[in-house]
């Protein structure tokens, strides 16, 4: 009986200690860091990402020298940052997904939503983009701005279908920067070539 008392006391003590561990929320301040790098596909200690992006041949392009290449990510085929002299910046993301990713209307309305613009109806779609021919591709081009926003942003997006995948070239950022870079962006689109292995 006493033995049982003693063992129960020990058990109770252990249970109490077990119940005391709880992970806490923490907060701290850190210097700004560069965008994360893409884990290499040959890594032995990181599982590869399961996000389905486009398979098949890649496109190639030539970016202007003032566009600073950023590390790609699981979702991005390419990424560039453009910073103006006054410190404002814009970012170009290049992504590719299988299929039509919901269709032109859904894509354009998603970008409009990001700028707090009202969505377009299907009837308004034909006037929502222009087509820019670069020789190899016919890019659909969308130029969106919300002048009513407190910090007006502009999105310049071009997209094409290539081997069953939709490729998006989307430049977003401060209005001044995107407007200034629009000619360079259109020139950049001319450098986009289908790559055959």
């Amino acid at each position, binding site marked *: 009986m006493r033995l049982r008392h003693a063992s129960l006391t020990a058990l109770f003590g252990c249970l109490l200690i077990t119940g005391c561990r709880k992970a806490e929320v923490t907060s701290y301040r850190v210097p*700004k860091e560069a965008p994360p790098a893409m884990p290499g596909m040959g890594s032995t200690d990181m599982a590869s990402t399961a996000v389905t992006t486009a398979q098949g041949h890649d496109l190639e392009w030539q970016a202007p020298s003032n566009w600073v290449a950023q590390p790609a990510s699981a979702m991005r085929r390419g990424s560039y940052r453009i910073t103006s002299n006054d410190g404002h910046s814009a970012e170009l993301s290049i992504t590719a997904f299988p299929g039509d990713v919901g269709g032109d209307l859904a894509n354009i309305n998603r970008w409009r939503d990001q700028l707090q613009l009202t969505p377009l109806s299907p009837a308004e779609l034909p006037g929502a983009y222009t087509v820019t021919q670069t020789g190899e591709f016919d890019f659909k081009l969308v130029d969106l701005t919300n002048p009513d926003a407190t910090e007006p942003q502009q999105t310049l997006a071009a997209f094409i279908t290539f081997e069953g995948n939709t490729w998006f070239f989307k430049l977003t950022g401060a209005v001044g920067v995107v407007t200034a870079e629009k000619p360079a962006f259109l020139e950049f689109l001319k450098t986009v070539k289908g790559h055959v292995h």
Partner: protein
Amino acid sequence: MREYWKAFVDFFVSLRLTVALLALSIVLIFWATLAQVQLGVWGVQAKFFQTFFVLAKIPGTQIPVPVFPGGYFIGGLLLINLVAAHINRFKFTWRKAGIQLTHIGLIILLIGELLTGLWQEEYQMRLDEGETKNYSESYRDNELAIIDTTKANYDDVVAIPDSRLDRGAEIQYPKLPFRVVVRDYYPNAALQMRSQVPNAPESLATAGIGPRIATTPLPLTYKQNERNLAAAYVELIGPEGTLGTWLVSTQLLMPQSFEYAGRTWALSLRFARNYKPFSLKLIDFSHDVYAGTDIPKNFSSRIKLTTVDGQDDREVLIYMNNPLRYAGLTFYQAGFDNDDRTTVLQVVHNPSWVLPYISCGLMSIGLLLQFGLSLVGFNRKHRAAA
């Protein structure tokens, strides 16, 4: 009261308890060895050894109940048993000095193992050539980082450990102007573009990239070379109502940003970070092979170590069996990646690393002393008989 105390002491000093605990530990180790096939080494350590009780869920429910004593319980009682027996029973004599020294070594080994289990932290640091980092990342734990990125020079981070991200959990933190409500949490999940999964159920996400992605829960992996990639749906609720529900995942490497209360915020589920008061920059990674073959000869990372206060600013070379020991941390060369342009360092914090060495030294001296004294005694008797 005295009788009760005596029964208490008798229980803890008894040899019967030692034998029972040793028998239990044999069963525990055998069970854990079999379970390692499914759980892997880390899972087994957590479930069987770094716990007071092995827990199992009641069939058909999610309620865990203890089913067997765990490593901490058996080891702890063995430690108490050994120390109590020494205090209560053993008297110091030179003849028994060897055996007592061996026991002290064993006690230190048990304490060392306990402290290692409690204090040891293992992280990794991935560095691309030219990259500088002042934090390492966990292998297994994740955190939901909510970052105020408004300021140009610094970020204010609130990190919520994944152990708090149960479905339905609500987290209110003074530095956040909104509540965080976990709508769902998957410890391992695959993400696919929604257009690829026509029958996917409607997404819980209403903001960020989430509405375009379908999330499929996956069973936990315990394989050494695989990693669980967690995902969660988190809703942020301010005083005036919901801000939206975001899908976060360790697979989405870019944080998702939004504006609220005049500030810019970023949201991401990432591998738990451990920041340091110093930074490491990878200057060069070398992967040498034996001439004319692909057989690896040496992996090394040339690193620049810099402290915030500028007291240290030097280059170090980390290679196999030559780790960097700095500020209580040990940085081992653990791997490489990205066509030899990225190094992977294992970062270990173990304040009790020296205890196993002391323990083995004491036990070796104790056994030598014990057998030496026996040998001398035997020789003396043998000579006297001759």
